[in-house]
Structure formats: structure tokens, C-alpha cells
């Protein structure tokens, strides 16, 4: 998730054109969503075990 955010920040701060910014922001978001899915899945297993 943090890596995805880093991509978004870098794109917004460093890239000049709107098209490349949009592309990298969406790519960063995709990385974040992947991270979120992994975090949710790992905690799901833990929660069912503990619950």
C-alpha cells in the first residue's frame, strides 16, 4: 500500500503532463488495492482462527 502511495506522490510531484500523471496515479492505486486485498485476506484467516 505504501509503495502504491509512493508511486502516486512521485507522479503528482514530478510528472509534467496530465496524461502521464493520470496513468501513474491509476497504477499506484492498483498497487494500493493489491496491498489492501493481501492485508484483508491475511487478517481474515487470523480472525476466523481467533473468533
Amino acid at each position, binding site marked *: 500500500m*505504501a509503495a*502504491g502511495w509512493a508511486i*502516486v506522490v512521485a507522479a503528482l510531484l514530478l510528472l509534467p503532463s496530465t496524461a502521464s500523471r493520470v496513468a501513474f*496515479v491509476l497504477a499506484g492505486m492498483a498497487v494500493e488495492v493489491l496491498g*489492501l486485498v493481501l492485508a484483508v485476506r491475511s*487478517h*481474515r484467516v487470523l480472525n*476466523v482462527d481467533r*473468533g
Partner: protein
Amino acid sequence: MGLPVPSLSQTSAALCFLLILLVPLAVAGLALVNAGLGRSRSAAHVMLASLCVFGVAATVFVAIGFSWQGCAGRSAHLMTIGGKTWNWIAAEPFFLRGLPLDLSAESLIVLLQVFSVGLAAVIPLSAGSDRWRLGASCASSALLAGWTYPLFAHWVWGGGWLSQLGANSGLGKGLVDGGGASTIQAVGGLTALSVTWVLGPRRGKFSPAGIPAGIPGHSPVLALAGCLMAWAGWLGLNSAGAILFAGTNPSSVVLTVLNTTLCATAAGLTAAVVTRVRFGRPDASLSANGWMAGLVASSAAAAFLKPAIAILVGIVAGGLVLSAIDLLESRLAIDDPGGAISVHAVAGIWGLVAGSLFSVGGPDGQWLAQLAGITTLLGFVLPLTYGLNWLLDKVYRQRVDEEGEVQGMDLYELGAGAYPEFVVHSDEFMQR
């Protein structure tokens, strides 16, 4: 630099001050909702925890938190990247030293922030209900008020890089969030998610196959009364925030109040209608969640929406919160007794999206600025708040002992129940 601190006439400052005085009603309302949606044997614990957590958050924020948050245009640490100067963190003295505490805009911002950070700190109590130790919830709120909240709030409200995206990168007006859909609600909601992950579910909530047991809230009356009280608080929060943080004219307060009300009513009604269709009767607890989600979703852009659009935003918020509650509990095995994650994080993020879709609009790139706010919440705030709570749990166990869960938090931690004349029920919901 983002939006500057507004210069207010004496009348506008007095209006703002009166609006800010309504905000504690939002905290009180949220505490009642949290108590009503939890179990009766932890009701007094939730209410006491709300007071303690608010106290800790306000104190820590005044002591150190405001030093990182600051106000737009005041001293801050800057960084030059790509030829542009970016504001990363404020550099104010501790304990508000050097700040004029009169009716100036800066002093009103500080006052609103103290109430706002308290509101954000009360949100996770709902998710940790029935198993979160009082001391641990206070320690967690100190981390929230000392680090997570001030840092993100500085980026949005204190002239930080998210608010500079307009001037520096040509993305509309930078991230616009008048009433704190991101800074208060989403930050509080994501902290609630971190807390549920660190604590784990309540005892007996999930069967070995992962099927959730229904553990109903003990008092829909408290929850619904809390909704009405929170409504009054939100009117003040959204109106004062729009003037102080979104630069709207004080005369727009009527539109802000109207849109906040329409959004909440539309969301509450949607939740009531959807549960009536699904279950045959409207569900009071889920309708309360719908109402609160409408208030949360209105926070980002109540000052800019057209009334018809505010109703639409509310309808979506009401439907969204029901789906999110169902998804989190049934599919993702997340035990969030009061629905804090769905109500505050999901509806808060929806509020930001709605702000960019329907209202703030105008210059190109505004939607990208709002999107940057959402990615920062998920990619920075969530890992930070989870990491802080995980570390805290390693040095000071956050979850109560099993004996405490069996007895209930009231008896175990406070020594007396909230309703001593009532019969305490057994765990009849537990799957055997």
C-alpha cells in the same frame, strides 16, 4: 500554498464560534451510537471510554499535535521537488505557544481542531467495543492525536502538499474537504479498521467455518437518539469547516446546513427502505448507520452541492454503508460491532469522490486532487495507524483478558454494570 486562512469580520467570527460550539454534540451523538450498538454489559465502558479518549486526544493535540498540523500560511518545513516548494509538516511551538487565542481565524481553527481530533478519536471505540481495554484505547488515541491526525490534517487543512496540488500542479483547487470527510472521518474509520485487525473479533463472533454470529446492539433507542444529536453537531462541523477550510462565504451556511440535513435524511431513509425490502421490517440499527453515513458523506462538499445532488449523495451513502457492513462481516471476517469502518471510512471516501464528481468541479484536475487524497488515506494513513497500533499492542496488550470478555467490560474494568437492575443474559448468540 493552499487556501489561506480566511480573514473574518467580527460578525463572521462570532458566527463561526457559535457553529463550533455545536461540534461537541457530534461527539456526544457518536458516543451514544457506539454505546447503543454495543452490548449492554459494556455500555458504561463505552461512554466512559468516549470521555477519556476525547480528553486524551484533546490534551495530546494541544500539547504536541498542533505543532505538526499548524495553519496555512504559518511556519512550516518546506521541501523543493521538481522546482516547486512543497509544505510537508508544520513547525509550530508546543502547547499553542505564540498563537493568538482570541476570535481570530487561527484561534477558531485551533478550537475546531481540538473538537475534531476528539471526534476522530471516538470513532474507533465502536470497532473495539466489548474487548478494547480502557487504557489501551486512551494510548491509541494519544498516537492518533499526536501523529496520524495532525500529519494528514496538515496536508489537507494546514497548507500542506495535498492542498498545494492546485497551485503547484494545476489540479483544481487542491484537495477540498470542508467538513473533514477525509481528515476526521476516514482517518477515524481507518484507525477503526486497524484496531479491529489488532484486537481480533469478539469471542464467539465467527464459527470455525468463518460464519458470523449475529450479536445485536443492546439499545436502538440510544443509537437513534445519538443520530439526532450528531446531526446538530454535524451542522456546526460542516458549516464552520466550510468557512475556515474551504474558503466559502459565511452566507453559504444556509446551503451547508440544508445539504447536510438532506444527505443524512436521504441516507437514513435509504437504509430503512432497503432493510424493509430485504428483511420485511426496517432495521433500526442499520438505519442509524445509514443516517450517520449520510452525515459523514456530506462533510466533504456540503457547502458546494446543489440540494438535489445532496439527496443523491445521501442515497448512495445509505446503500453503500449497508453493502460495506455486509461485506466486512460476512465475507472478510471483520468484527466491527458499530459499523465504524463502513460508516466513517467508506462513506468518508465516498464523500470525497462525490465532492469531485458533483460539486467542487470547476477547474481541470480537481478529481485527480481528490483521488490523491484517497490514495494517501489508503497508502499512508492506514499503514501508519496500523503500524502504530500494532507496536502499541506489543508493548501494552490492547485486548482484554478472556475473563473480561465473559464478564463484560463494565464489570471487569469498572466494577459495576450500566444497568444493575437488569438481568444479564448469557451468550445465547454463540454457535456451539
